[in-house]
């Protein structure tokens, strides 16, 4: 079991926005613990002090005290006023309205059960492993292809629902390079649990290089077996759901596979991306991730072998 001190969540923020939220949360936790301590303290005091003793008569009957009631209303009202101010101030800071025509830096689309990211102004489209540059205030657009999903990377700031027919936005100014994990946070069906997010934050130059690489079409230098796989792929219905740029495959129901071989994870975080897992997935997708939209095609073993060779060769 790993240590709690390693917990990389929203109270260890990595963006300006998450940082603001984390400090507001800290103030709130202090105030809440204070109120809770007062209630528990008073409760213990009255319980011990006024416990019935044998031979007690009826206690003095009184029904109120204006001064106490004044405090009971006054103190919480004051606390609420302070937090109202902090709330509205933080909201304005974390989620200012963008200019109407501002081009987003990245567009995130939630699908059942994976994430798509495209970078407007470039041809790059990726799935689940999303790269972002550090040190720049990024405008992230969020929408959904089918049902409601929710984009949530705790260390990078606010979560935001991805709602079909609507475009939402969040801002994030990532402060340090690193890998940040997140998950779909709105119940979206059978595999809501395996719709995890991996954000790789990189310095600007590295990020540009990565985008340029992702703009490339699919690899064409393939081994004989991989070529057989490519042919098999193009003759089967794969392309009606998946896209491989540079080929006829142009679907958008499943993840873009143009650079599939360069990914570390598959199935939105369920498995490590390696040939063995890929073979398992292609053979019995509904055993590996029940409820995912990938049907079981029942391809013969050697067809799956060449398909695995082809897909892992797509770097």
């Amino acid at each position, binding site marked *: 079991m790993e240590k709690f001190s390693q917990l990389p969540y929203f109270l260890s923020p990595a963006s300006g926005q998450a940082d603001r*939220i984390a400090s507001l949360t800290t103030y709130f936790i202090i105030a809440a613990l204070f109120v809770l301590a007062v*209630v528990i303290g008073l409760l213990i005091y009255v319980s011990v002090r006024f416990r019935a003793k044998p031979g007690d008569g009826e206690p003095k009957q009184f*029904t109120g*005290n204006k001064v106490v009631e004044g405090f009971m209303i006054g103190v919480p009202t004051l606390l609420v006023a302070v937090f*109202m101010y902090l*709330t509205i101030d933080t909201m304005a800071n*974390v989620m200012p309205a963008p200019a109407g025509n501002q081009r987003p830096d990245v567009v995130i689309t939630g699908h059942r059960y994976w994430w798509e990211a495209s970078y407007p102004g470039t041809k790059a489209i990726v799935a689940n492993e999303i790269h972002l540059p550090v040190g720049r205030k990024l405008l992230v657009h969020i929408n959904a292809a089918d049902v409601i999903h929710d984009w949530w990377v705790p260390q990078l700031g606010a979560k935001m629902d991805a709602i079909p027919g609507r475009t939402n936005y969040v801002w994030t100014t990532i402060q340090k390079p690193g890998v940040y994990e997140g998950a779909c946070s709105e*119940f979206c069906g059978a595999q809501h649990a395996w719709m995890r997010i991996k954000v790789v934050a990189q310095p600007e130059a590295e990020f540009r290089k990565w985008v340029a690489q992702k703009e490339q079409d699919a690899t064409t230098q393939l081994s004989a077996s991989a070529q057989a796989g490519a042919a098999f792929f193009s003759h089967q219905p794969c392309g009606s759901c998946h896209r491989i740029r540079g080929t006829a495959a142009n679907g958008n129901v499943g993840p873009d596979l143009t650079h599939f071989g360069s990914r570390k994870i598959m199935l939105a975080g369920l498995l490590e991306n390696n040939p063995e897992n890929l073979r398992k997935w292609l053979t019995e997708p509904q055993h590996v991730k029940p409820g995912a939209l990938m049907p079981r095609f029942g391809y013969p073993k050697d067809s799956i072998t060449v398909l695995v060779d082809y897909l892992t060769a797509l770097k």
Partner: protein
Amino acid sequence: MITDVQLPEPKTPLPGATVNSDQGLLMWISSVDHKQIGIMYMIMTLFYLFVGGLLALLMRVQLMMPENTFLAPDSYNQLFTMHGTTMIFFVLTPAILGMAVYMVPLQIGANEMAFPRLNAFAFWISFFGGLLLYFSFLAGGAPDAGWFSYAPLNQTQYSASPGIDYYCIGLLLSGIGTVSTAANLAVTIITLRTPSMKYKYLPVFVWMVFINAFLILAAFPSLNAALAMLLIDRQLDGHFFNTDAGGSALLWQHLFWLFGHPEVYIVVLPPFGVLSEVFQVYSRKPIFGYPFVVGSGIAISLLAFGVWVHHMFATGMGNTVNSFFAVSSMLIGIPTGVKIFNWLGTMYGGSIRFTTGMLFATAFLVEFTIGGLSGISFAIVPIDWQLTDTYYVVAHLHYVFLGGSLFGLFAGFFYWFPKISGRMYSETLGKWFFWLFMIGFNMTFFMQHILGIIGMPRRVYTYPNLAGYSLLNLISSLGAFLMGGSMLIFLYLLYDAIKRGKRAGDNPWDGYTFEWLTSSPPALKNFTILPPVYSFRPVHDLNHPEIGDYQKSDEEKYGTKDTD
């Protein structure tokens, strides 16, 4: 001094009253007696509490360790949907209705509800609504889109099994029952009070039920309309919520939470009333700040309709809208929070008896404060942006529904058990039950605050083996089993009390309100004779004339001048 006497009588004989009690089951089915209907509500509630609890235990087995395969994702999703739906609509809501239907006529000195047949109709239609909901398991799959059933996941193309159709029809039926009972309770309280019982003399429980009746009348139609629209979408190809055909996903959320948030107060206001009775009687003192307790109940019910968007802060509504709902949500914390201090004030200077009922009431103070404080963190929009839809919410809502409503209902159950059954229960068993249940409850749900903060989303059938997830989930599951085990003690306690319990007598706790004046259990006709009412605790005035409230001016009684 108390001299004159009032004799309330039902104007016409009631059909159920003519059935002889030795006709057994038929007597119950045909009954229109508010007490028998109240008891049937409570039995139904207890049954569904066990069913809903069993679903929860299955879920906790699945979540005991990471990447567990005990349940398939589909089954898990059906379980959590049915767990939530059952607990909200077939445990908490009928439990408060059952208690109200049983106690309100007794507390206001009436012999029946205003509409006895409507009362029976409302119970039976709720009962059959529940059966129909559970029939879905046999009819091709239970609903699986959550008790909130968000659009467009609730549409046929995303949830093809008939589960959600059963969800619509089952909840519509029980919703009709709930609205009927609310109207019935409101009319009963307005028209059937013993003539000298002015509004300012209503027991606090009756006040809370009265306020609650209007809350139900305003909130449930929104749900019922949404359910009818969803049924039209699913059965007749309507486009209200179907985004693929141009419908709006957010419209469902607005309609649902316009009901759903008031529902939280619907199931907590009557327990507030129950607790006010329990704190008074076991502390031997009148409630501290009666006008404030009632007034804050009214404030809560009004504010309840201005807070629904705090369930939707992550839907991208914009800062202006969000600020409005943030402010109203924080404001509702003030009257709610102040009630806690009213109850502490009631205990202050008293002579407190820690019976099982009182233990649940005092534990409520702590658990509900935790639930209320974590609730404020959702009103603070930026915190909500991090924590909504995580296990932190699961923790919060269980502290409110279970640590709040259910603890309050248990307090009332143990307080009124001698009246309803005519028997005393074993305090030893009661205390065992209380402590195990309370420890199990906190073990289960306190951990979930931390799980949410470290990033575990809710409604997931499994989770990766990340730092902390496994240990906290294991503790949570063990706590759930402790809670489940303690419920068996509760069952044994009931059996033991009914079988071997001592006779309770009319007023074993030296209670303050009219129900303690009649026999235990009350006869079919509640009262033949009642004293006039001079304060909100008439039986106390009767039994303790030397310190009775009737001697005091209104200023002394309430801290306010008589303006009546």
